[in-house]
């Protein structure tokens, strides 16, 4: 009677003890050290896994920050405070992480830029661009078929009624996916604090630009002269903003073509 109870209890108990011992030994000798900070940093990141930082996701980036000393300010969706928190946790200095937003460098919607023919093909920018410029007279301007809007993970881009992609800077998490999606390389990430922009990428001569669009840069250089070369410069036939320097909002009035805009760019008439 006693045996029938005692033996199984002893056997199971002994087996449990031995297994526990084995685990304890294994835990001691096969231990892999995982920095607890990795988990903490991961929890501080937004978890969107957008890949904008250049790593395979938030966890991968957190590992890179802790183990490889990657800068903590690469996460674009993070606010500056978020980067500061991470830096404080690791005891490193957070370099000024500037909030970047995507900007479409074209303002020539259907109202302002002319169509050269009726495009009845695939409603998609790459295909349209391959066929004689997709019906847009300007061969640099936004085609408006919304490849950028389709890749945007937060729905910050709208092509609107005038077939012109516009980014909502409030929603943009600066992941940079739209930059890669645009076949005409019209989108770039600019500092959110920078308010004055030249919304044109047309590198043709002024005569040609004027034929194609009402708001294209005609390379008159008035803005460059007004700014005395500070903060913007000419690249061939196109004035380009140098985003490392501030720019005076007064330049908006200088441009005869109304190419220079102060953000947020006004809605189309």
């Amino acid at each position, binding site marked *: 009677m006693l045996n029938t109870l005692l033996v199984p209890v002893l056997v199971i108990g002994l087996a449990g003890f031995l297994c526990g011992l084995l685990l304890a030994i294994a835990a001691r000798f096969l231990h892999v050290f995982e920095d607890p900070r990795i988990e903490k940093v991961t929890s501080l990141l937004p978890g969107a896994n957008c890949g904008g930082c250049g790593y395979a996701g938030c966890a991968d980036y957190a590992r890179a920050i802790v183990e490889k000393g990657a800068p903590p300010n690469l996460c674009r969706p993070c606010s500056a405070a978020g980067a500061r928190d991470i830096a404080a946790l690791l005891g490193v200095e957070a370099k000024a992480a500037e909030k970047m937003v995507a900007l479409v460098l074209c303002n020539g919607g259907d109202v302002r830029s002319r169509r050269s023919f009726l495009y009845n093909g695939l409603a998609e920018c*790459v295909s349209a661009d391959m066929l*004689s410029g997709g019906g847009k007279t300007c061969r640099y301007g936004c085609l408006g078929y919304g490849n950028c809007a389709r890749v945007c993970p937060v729905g910050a881009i709208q092509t609107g009624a005038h077939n012109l992609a516009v980014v909502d800077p409030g929603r943009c998490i600066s992941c940079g996916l739209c930059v890669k999606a645009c076949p005409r390389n019209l989108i770039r990430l600019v500092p959110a604090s920078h308010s004055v922009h030249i919304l044109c990428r047309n590198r043709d001569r002024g005569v040609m630009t004027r034929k194609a669009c009402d708001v294209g840069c005609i390379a008159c250089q008035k803005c460059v002269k007004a700014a005395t070369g500070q903060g913007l410069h000419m690249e061939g036939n196109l004035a380009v903003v140098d985003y490392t320097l501030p720019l005076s909002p007064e330049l908006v009035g200088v441009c005869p073509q109304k190419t220079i805009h102060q953000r947020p760019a006004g809605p189309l008439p």
Partner: protein
Amino acid sequence: MKTIKAPFKLPNTLHLHYHKEATAALALEVMPAPAVVQIPMSQHLGAPSRPIVARGDSVGLGQPIAEPVGAVSAWAHASVSGVVKSIGEGLSTSGRPTTFIELENDGLDRPGSTLQPRPDWASADGKSLIPLIAAAGIVGMGGAGFPTHIKISPPAGRIIDTLIVNGAECEPFLTADQRLMMEKADLIWNGIQILRHILGGPRIRVAIEDDKPEAIRAMEKAMARADGDVEIVSLPAAYPMGAEKQLILSVLGREIPSGGLPADVGALVENVATCAAVYEAIVLGQPVTQRVVTVTGPLIRRPANILARIGTTLADLIAFCGGLTGQSGKLICGGPMMGVAQIGADVPMGKTTSGLLALPRESVRLFDSMPCISCNRCVRACPMSLLPCTITSAVEADQLETVEALHTLDCIECGCCSYVCPSRRPMVQLMRQGKARVQLARRQKQEQEKAKGKQG
């Protein structure tokens, strides 16, 4: 020499209304060289040529004005004598931006060709003639524009046992090759003999669709005393009979493996116009400076088959044919199935421009495409036996792996799927998209692997 019927049947073909009656009976007309020609730098498959003349230079007819860049490229020559007016940018007939050399014609046709004629080609080493063909700027004149000198130098280990001469011309409306065969059959046959000599004596199959009996008769006459294994193959008239892979299948019964080349099955296909160009280059020392273009369509006042200089603008071609009879709806370079719609008539023709088709506004209908209804018509129409409906849906859903697994890269972009689709879905465009994306993904993967290899 005998004429046989095509021994093998194609799985899927379309029977289109050919519309060739307007120009089939019209003899070739030589168009006087226009006052200004624009020579495009990308008239061929591969890298665009690089101009070797500068503004203000004086050039002679046939003088090389642009050199090839990289392995797959071609020479370009002045098609008139005169002065280089400008070198500028513009759209080519394929709808892509390219560089142009604009020449002002002095009307003298002063010879400037640097090619050494080789009337004694039969006694020369075959391989020594290939550089001559390259220097003459000869590319596949059927439409693809692949440089001929590369095509006739098969990769090591591949033996070409059959040269198929493509006189099918299956695109509706076009009669350029047909007229060339009817009027210059001797020229073509001489060109074929030169190619045969270069390739080391393969058997010859001249493939012509059976709706062109006069062309078959003309070629029969020219080749009556041909020696060796030479046959004319009369193909059933169907689209896309003239496509390279379809032609090989129909004539030889050999299927090119997925992703392979005709050389993999021992065949080589050359267009009849290319053969004529080979003769002109080797025997007469003339580079490619002109070609036959069919200018046709309901809107052309006087449809014609024209021998025009390369670089003649479409507007000049139309003007030579008496202009348009009404409001233009669509201008297409090439045939209606695979041709490219143009945005204007100020685009110059290139070496591959076989036709110009003008359609009136009434016949051009805008359409919205509807969802796929799984009717399977595209599957039954696809000459490559692909599944266009599944592939295009996968392209739209961005499922690249499915797109690749369904052999999208084997698509020949013939347009049969778009033609039969009752939902008017942009099938070819989606297939083209799918091809481009798969190729891009492969390139990126290769680059990644290369980078990894460097690290490791």
